[in-house]
């Protein structure tokens, strides 16, 4: 009983440490323009990934990271229906010249990165990130 408690506390501490340390994140540059998203590199090992986003377009954009490949996405009234995918995280209101960062923990698999402001997706603001084990 006591041992379980100690383990639980240790686990909690480890998790806490994991989610607060940013140093070991793999950097990915995410370039947003009107209308495309380019990730470099587009393939990273599983773990903490830090997107250095940079909007060099003339419009405000957003940056959504979704789990799963985007093949099942359909467009209706200018927005992508992403209900078949799970949202990992997002940054909204990225103004022209904006350079926010977004740090997420990713398991191995395929991820879809897109901007879902009306019509931005269908004009080409979508790309894929591959996370290897």
């Amino acid at each position, binding site marked *: 009983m006591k041992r379980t408690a100690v383990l639980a506390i240790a686990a909690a501490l480890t998790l806490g440490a994991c989610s607060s340390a940013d140093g070991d994140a793999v950097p990915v540059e995410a370039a947003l323009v009107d209308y495309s998203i380019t990730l470099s590199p587009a393939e990273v090992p599983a773990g903490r990934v830090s997107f250095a986003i940079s909007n060099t377009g003339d419009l405000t954009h957003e940056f959504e990271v979704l789990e799963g490949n985007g093949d099942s996405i359909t467009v209706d009234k200018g927005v992508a*229906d992403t209900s078949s995918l*799970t949202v990992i995280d997002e940054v909204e209101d990225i103004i022209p010249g904006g350079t926010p960062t977004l740090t997420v923990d990713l398991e191995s698999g395929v991820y879809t990165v897109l901007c879902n402001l009306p019509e931005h997706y269908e004009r080409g603001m979508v790309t894929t990130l591959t996370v290897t084990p």
Partner: protein
Amino acid sequence: MLTTFVIGLREGVEAALIVGIIASVLRRDGDRRAFRAMWAGVALAVLLCIGVAVGLRVAGSQLPFRSREIMEGILTLVAAAGVLYMVAWMRRHAHELKPELEEKTADALRDGSTWALVGLAFFAVIREGLETAIFLVALVGGTANPVVGLTGGLLGILTAVAIGWGIYRGGLRFDLRRFFRVTGVVLVVLAAGLVASAVHSFAEAGLIGFWQAPAVDLSAILAPGTVRAALLTAFLGLQPVPTYLELAVWIAFLVPALVFVLSPPPNRPTEVVTP
């Protein structure tokens, strides 16, 4: 500059409307203490927002997406409940707040309900301000041109404050019954938008999964990045392309609420005047 101006305006307008209306009510109520407490609350809320935003920035951390959306959804629902309470309060007290009765009613109104309004003003600023402060703080070091972006954002907020100030002056000048009728309509539209936004947040967090297809494309009117879109989005609380669920909730809330606000207030008991 225009982009951040629009964002500042969009985020600030809702809180400015609520605070402006509450300020004019408390002023007419004649309860000086509550009026002053409201401003202290608003100032405290602004400072808290800036403090939290700077703190998060320094710590370099952010709330996980799901908890962020769920927290936002809950805060938004609480705000909607607060706004509804305010509408009901104004309806009930409209006749007591006539300027000529100011002195006599001050005592009667100095109860818990006045302080609930003070609390709502604080809450309205916290709700909108936190997000705005985080956005503005992120501009520093997060944009190629932080000064221009910040100036735009602050000018947007100032414009929102000016709108709130206009409402406050209007509330002092105009016949209260009419003022409450008009602001009541504004407030229930605002509350309906808040409930729809809460639905949007819960859907983003994955808690709600039905009727998520886009219902209608309003992006021609609500094109992100324009002043008109900022005011309409803040006021209506609708996404540029709302889902069927968001639209249904918005209408289901708005219609009965409008009927309630526009129906004549309950008659007050006739006073017996003894010479």
